C-alpha cells in the first residue's frame, strides 16, 4: 500500500476535512468541507489519506466502511479553483492533486472492508469517481451525479478505469464522452449506483440496513471475496492510475482548459 506523501500531511488544517467514526463493525468516513460542497482540495485529500492511514493501522479492521459527505453534497469533484495556474499556483499543482486523488481511489478500493458510497447529494466528476470505486453505492432519485469533465475541456482520466470496471467499457464511453449530469434515478439505471431510494430522508435507514446485512456475513468470507473481485478486474494496478493522473493534468494545463476554468471563476 502506498503511503501518503509527507507534504500532504503538512497542508492538513486544524479542522479535519475528512473524519472517521466507528459504530461496531461499521466505520464511516465523512468528507467535511460542506461550504465547498466537499470539493477535493489538496487539504481534503491530505486529510483523507491520514484517515486511510488510521484505517490501515487498525489490527482488526471494520467490516464495512461507509463513505459520505457532510451537508447537502456528497462531493463536487476536484476543487477547480486550486488548479487554475497563475502567480499563486505552481504549474505542478494539478498533477500533485490528481496523483493524490489517484492514490486515494486506489487505497479505498484495496481496503479490506466492504465500502458503501452513501451519496447524500451531488457527486460530480472526481466525486462521482469516489462513488464508482466503492463496492456498493446508494443514492436518492433526485441526487445529481455525472462526469461533466469533457464539457469543461477536461479529461476524466483517473475515474475512467473505475467507471469502466463499474458499468463496462461501452456504457462508460457514452457517459464520459457525452458529459453532463444525470439524476440518481438514471445513475441507478446505468449501474453507477447499486441501490436507490426515493427521497434523501430514506437514505440513512437503507444504508444502515445494507451495512447490517453485510455485517451478518463472515468477515473473512467478505474480505476474501472482495480481494478476488479486485484481482479479477485488475484493481491492484496503481500504475494505470498514475498514468491517468498525468494524462488528466496535461489536458488541465492546456491553454484551452485554463481559459475555460478562468471563465467559470468569472
Amino acid at each position, binding site marked *: 500500500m502506498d503511503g501518503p506523501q509527507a507534504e500532504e500531511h503538512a497542508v492538513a488544517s486544524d479542522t479535519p476535512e475528512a473524519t472517521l467514526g466507528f459504530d461496531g463493525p461499521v466505520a464511516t468516513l465523512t468528507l467535511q468541507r460542506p461550504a465547498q460542497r466537499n470539493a477535493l482540495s489538496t487539504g481534503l485529500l491530505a486529510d483523507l489519506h491520514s484517515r486511510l492511514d488510521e484505517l490501515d493501522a487498525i489490527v482488526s479492521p471494520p467490516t464495512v466502511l461507509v463513505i459520505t459527505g457532510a451537508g447537502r453534497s456528497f462531493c463536487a469533484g476536484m476543487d477547480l479553483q486550486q488548479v487554475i495556474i497563475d502567480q499563486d499556483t505552481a504549474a505542478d499543482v494539478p498533477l500533485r492533486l490528481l496523483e493524490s486523488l489517484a492514490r486515494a481511489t486506489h487505497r479505498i478500493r484495496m481496503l479490506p472492508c466492504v465500502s458503501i458510497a452513501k451519496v447524500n447529494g451531488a457527486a460530480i466528476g472526481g466525486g462521482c469517481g469516489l462513488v464508482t470505486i466503492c463496492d456498493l453505492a446508494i443514492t436518492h432519485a433526485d441526487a445529481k451525479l455525472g462526469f461533466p*469533465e*469533457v*464539457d*469543461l*475541456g*477536461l*479529461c*476524466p*482520466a483517473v475515474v*475512467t*478505469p473505475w467507471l*469502466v470496471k463499474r458499468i*463496462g*467499457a*461501452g*456504457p*462508460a*464511453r*457514452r457517459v*464520459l*464522452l*457525452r*458529459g453532463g449530469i444525470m439524476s440518481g434515478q438514471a445513475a441507478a439505471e446505468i449501474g453507477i449506483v447499486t441501490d436507490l431510494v426515493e427521497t434523501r430522508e430514506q437514505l440513512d435507514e437503507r444504508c444502515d440496513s445494507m451495512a447490517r446485512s453485510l455485517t451478518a456475513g463472515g468477515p473473512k468470507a467478505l474480505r476474501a471475496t472482495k480481494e478476488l473481485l479486485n484481482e479479477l478486474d485488475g484493481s491492484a494496478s496503481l500504475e*494505470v492510475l498514475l498514468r*491517468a493522473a498525468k*494524462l488528466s493534468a*496535461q*489536458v488541465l494545463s*492546456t491553454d*484551452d*482548459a485554463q481559459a*475555460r476554468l478562468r471563465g467559470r471563476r468569472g
Partner: protein
Amino acid sequence: MIRVERVTADGSACTVITLNRPKRRNALTPSMIAELVAALHTAAEAGGGVLLRGEGPVFCAGFDLRLCLDSTDGSAIRLLLSGLSDACRAMRAHPGPVVVAAQGAAIAGGCALVAAADWAIGEAGGRYGYPVTRLGISPAVNAPFLEAAVDGGRARDLSLLPDLVSGEHAARIGLLHTLCAEGADVTQAASEEAARLGGKPAEAFAVTKAWLTELEGADRDTRTDRALEVSLSLTGGQEERTMLAAALNGDR
C-alpha cells in the same frame, strides 16, 4: 457507392459518409469498404465528427454474399474482412465523435460498424446482429469491438447464435444508444447527436476517447489482428463454400 459530404452544424464540422447502394440494402463490396476506409482516414485529417449512414430504408445488410460466392478462391471475402477490420479501427482511432445512423437493419458487417461507433442510433422494429456462423463465416473479426460495446455474455450470444435481435433488444443490451420510433428519421437524430458530441471541447474529447480506447484494449493491434486472423482462417474453406452456396440458393 460511398458518398462523402462535409457539413457544419451548430458550428461544428462533420464528415457525413453515406453507404450508397440502396437497391442492395447497402451490401458491402470490397471496393465500397476500401472507399469507406479511405473516407474515414480523410475525415480524421479534416477533423470534427463523422456521421456514418446508409441510403434508403436499411443501413447495411452486411457483405455482398453473391459476390463472396462468385469469388471461388475466397479473395472477395478476405478483402471484405480485412477492410471491415480497418474500418472499425479507423472509427476508434478517429479523434472526434463517430455516430452511426442504423435505420432498418444492421446485419453482420453492418452490425460490426454499429459496434465500433461512439454513438449508435437505431430504429424500433429494426433488426440487428451477426447471423453469419450459418454461412460458415466467423464474426470474430468484430469481437474486440463488440466485447467493448456490450457485456461478455451478450457478446457471446450475438456472435455465436445465428439470430437477429430487435432494435428494442439491441438498445437494452447497449449495442444501440438511442432508439428512434419505427419510421422516424434516424439520420436526423444522428445528425443532432453528432452536433451535440462535436460541440464538446475537441482536445478534451479526443484525449478522453483515446484513453477509453486504450483501456478497453480495442486499439491493441495484436488483439484486433488476431480476431481478423480467426475470421480469415475459414475463408475459401469447404464449410464456408457449402454453407454460403446453400444459403444463397435457398434465397432464390
